[in-house]
């Protein structure tokens, strides 16, 4: 998707190892989000950020941490990967102003993570 890049696109890792996923945007949007997508659950919010060094938890934040040291980068870390964290992870960005909220999110292409 234009202006937002996720890396890596695919990753296989072993249980118990730390993993970091990266979301990079060139849109200078203030708000960034990490979701996971699982069959039967749709998209569930893990963490989100409303500015540099300002982050907050979503509904499924256990086992995950995030960092945002620059506007353009939002990192998601699985501190000790478990098989239940096998999923597709999506990053999204959005405009900062209330009146622009109606434009919703722009999504990245996703990272498919497999924990074995």
């Amino acid at each position, binding site marked *: 998707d234009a202006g937002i890049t996720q890396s890596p696109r695919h990753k296989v890792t072993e249980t118990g190892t730390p993993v970091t996923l990266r979301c990079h945007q060139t849109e200078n949007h203030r708000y960034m989000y990490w979701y996971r997508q699982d069959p039967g659950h*749709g998209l*569930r919010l893990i963490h989100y950020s409303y500015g540099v060094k300002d982050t907050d938890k979503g509904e499924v934040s256990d086992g995950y941490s995030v960092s945002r040291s620059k506007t353009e980068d939002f990192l998601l870390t699985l501190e000790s990967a478990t098989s239940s964290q096998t999923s597709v992870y999506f990053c999204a960005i959005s405009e900062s*102003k209330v009146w622009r909220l*109606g434009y*919703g999110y722009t*999504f990245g292409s996703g990272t498919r993570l497999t924990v074995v």
Partner: protein
Amino acid sequence: AQSVTQLDSQVPVFEEAPVELRCNYSSSVSVYLFWYVQYPNQGLQLLLKYLSGSTLVKGINGFEAEFNKSQTSFHLRKPSVHISDTAEYFCAVGPRETSGSRLTFGEGTQLTVNP
């Protein structure tokens, strides 16, 4: 808080038939409503949105949706589907008043168009 219920997890239809994907939502505040589409192995793309005004909203690829406030629904429709419409569709809701608010998504509806 908001919640979204997509009433059908899978919808199989034949090519050129009409289709309706159903979405109900719950919210204590006024909301924006969205439909996103996800083609296989891709991210989500905005299909259409309801912000205000006319309750019938037209989106890309011939899709439209109707906002019904009394029934708290936002059903997606297309009068004649194509094979290329096969994808997963997500309904989402977000509160109007709060800047940068999070969207809440439904569980998705897999639309499969058969020849």
